[in-house]
């Protein structure tokens, strides 16, 4: 009887305690979802971890796990990695933005017959998750400031990542060594694939992570410390425009269906993983190209008489990347800024973003902190209008084509008001 029940729920490898915890967590998640409190994953995760603190290890038993962490691009890269590995068989992934320990446990509990997992991991949770799931590969892409008021300083995160690298000698780290902080964190790695993606944002990495002296960057995307020996090493893979140059000097042409140069970098990481995992390169490229939105991000759709492209970025590096590389000509731009706990209560980072290129466009500032944006734009000499109400801001613009760029909760709340596009 017990066996049949366990089998019915797909729990045959679980202990009775774990099976009960998963059932209770799922029920909580379901109730929370029915009550209209979002997807219920965060709550279910808390329940699961609360009942079975070590469940991550049991749930990941027998799974080949790939972890992806970064300040920016982890959701997109995870989606690309999962899509290409799916050509080898079912893959379990956490695609609901649930990237902390609890949410990952919930995702793993729904693994069904998957033999592989691709998991997006919050920067601060990498230590815990890696220790439990013993990943085969970890992709590390970048570290920059995010949520100034609550997440610890980027350097202490880099130090914690260095510990992960030390604790997991059997794991292969796929590291973007263009970011000095990532190179620093992976210095002790036994198995490492060094990737040079180029570095667009360096304001958070200018001090040497080893000795705090100044770092010198040159036009070739390399860096070296002015006093100790810390410097950018030779890379195994180099991203050069749309081409990924492999260790054997073959070149892979990268194509993506998402705007922005930074998405070429995300795709490069996914293709390198696919290469290491034995996925046919043509198949992997096709699968990466097939992604045209990631949980609503980058999605273009029609609403009334307007065509809206949705963009989301949480921090100055993300905003700068989008403002630098997305084509705005002929379009209106709506900028949404919130300051909920998930965004960080401190909005001062908007002064680290150069808005002056928007000077010639029709711009509307919106979100809870529309006035912060308005003052910022005003001093940058960008003429604009203001509406705290995001839906109204969308209807105010001049052009039938508009690009919306918002931070996390601003973006989520707009998606909700537009009917979960």
């Amino acid at each position: 009887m017990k066996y049949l029940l366990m089998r019915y729920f797909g729990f045959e490898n679980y202990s009775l305690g774990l099976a009960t915890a998963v059932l209770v967590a799922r029920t909580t998640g379901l109730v929370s979802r029915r009550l209209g409190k979002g997807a219920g994953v965060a709550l279910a995760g808390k329940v699961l971890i609360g009942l079975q603190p070590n469940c991550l290890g049991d749930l990941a038993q027998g799974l080949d796990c790939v972890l992806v962490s970064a300040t920016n691009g982890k959701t997109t890269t995870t989606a690309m990695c999962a899509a290409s590995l799916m050509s080898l068989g079912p893959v379990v992934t956490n695609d609901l933005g649930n990237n902390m320990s609890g949410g990952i446990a919930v995702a793993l509990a729904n693994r069904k017959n998957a033999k592989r997992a691709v998991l997006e991991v919050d920067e601060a949770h990498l230590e815990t998750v890696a220790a439990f799931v013993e990943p085969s590969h970890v992709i590390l892409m970048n570290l920059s400031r995010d949520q100034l008021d609550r997440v610890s300083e980027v350097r202490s995160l880099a130090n914690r990542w260095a510990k992960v690298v030390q604790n997991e000698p059997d794991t292969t780290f796929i590291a973007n060594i263009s970011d000095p902080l990532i190179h620093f964190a992976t210095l002790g790695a036994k198995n490492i694939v060094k990737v040079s993606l180029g570095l667009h944002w360096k304001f958070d990495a200018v001090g040497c992570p080893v000795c705090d002296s100044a770092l010198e960057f040159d036009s070739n995307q390399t860096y070296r410390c002015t006093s100790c020996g810390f410097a950018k090493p030779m890379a195994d893979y180099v991203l050069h425009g749309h081409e990924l140059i492999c260790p054997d000097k073959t070149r892979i042409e990268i194509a993506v269906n998402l705007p922005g140069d930074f998405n070429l970098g995300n795709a490069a990481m996914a293709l390198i993983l696919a290469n290491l995992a034995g996925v046919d390169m043509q198949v992997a490229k096709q699968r990466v190209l097939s992604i045209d939105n990631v949980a609503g991000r980058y999605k273009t759709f029609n609403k009334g008489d307007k065509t809206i492209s949705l963009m989301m970025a949480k921090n100055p590096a993300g905003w700068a990347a989008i403002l630098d590389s997305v084509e705005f000509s002929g379009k209106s731009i709506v900028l949404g800024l919130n300051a909920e706990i998930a965004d960080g209560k401190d909005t001062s980072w908007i002064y680290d973003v150069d808005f002056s290129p928007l000077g010639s466009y029709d711009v509307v500032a919106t979100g809870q902190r529309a006035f912060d944006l308005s003052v910022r734009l005003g001093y940058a000499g960008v003429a604009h209008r203001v509406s705290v109400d995001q839906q109204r801001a969308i209807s105010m613009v001049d052009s039938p084509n508009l690009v919306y760029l918002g931070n996390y909760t601003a973006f989520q709340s707009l998606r909700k008001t537009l009917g979960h596009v």
Partner: protein
Amino acid sequence: MSDKILKIVLVYPDLLGTYGDSGNAEILVARAKLRGINAVLVTVSSTQPVPLDGDVYVLGGGEDGPQQAAVTLLRKDGGLERAHSNGAQILAICAGFQILGVEFPISKSGSVAGLGLLPVRTLRSTKPRCVGELMVDPDPSLGVPLVSGYENHAGQTEIISGKPLGRVVYGVGNSYESGCDGYLDDTVIASYCHGPMLARNPGIADVILWRALGTDLSEISDANLMHSIDDLRFERISSIGTPKYWKDLLSIARRLKQLL
């Protein structure tokens, strides 16, 4: 207008720039230019010498490691100290404020000597980090309204002699005990308010410009910008105000008053 070019020096934004602090320097330049005053922003990274001929020096917040690196470099360079003794204006926020004092704490243990330009001392605290909105009733000599900002610091600053920027109305400021924020004298304005500070407090920006130029300032004619700043100040200041239960009590009291 005089032919003088007002030189605003942004000091080590690569080390002291965690909280959008370059915005303060940008705003000083913008507010000068909006009045037809010739102003230039000079950005000095930590590998460059600090010029002696600046009119205003702007220092911002930073993490422990870079903060220590900054004080070592500034002492070796000597430019900021010389400019200060020549009477240049300084705006120092958060870590930048701590650096100007006689000592400040670093990492988990130990402390280092500051530049000693200000008679203040910052000590480590076992109390929770001070994070959140900060509102300060500024020293009346400045003639500016409430100062609004966002604070995020662990160190507790004690003023040895001299006066603070103002009395704390909301938040922590220099320390849990002091009830005041920042430091103020004829050439230095220091505070834990970032946001950046001058975005929300144009009055402070104009005090610095007025002190640097030594002449009265004309009105700024960009009405849109002025309205945005008013709206931002209103929104930020009313966002803190009284706690929710007091708001409820106040509204009940008002209702009763109307009824009677």
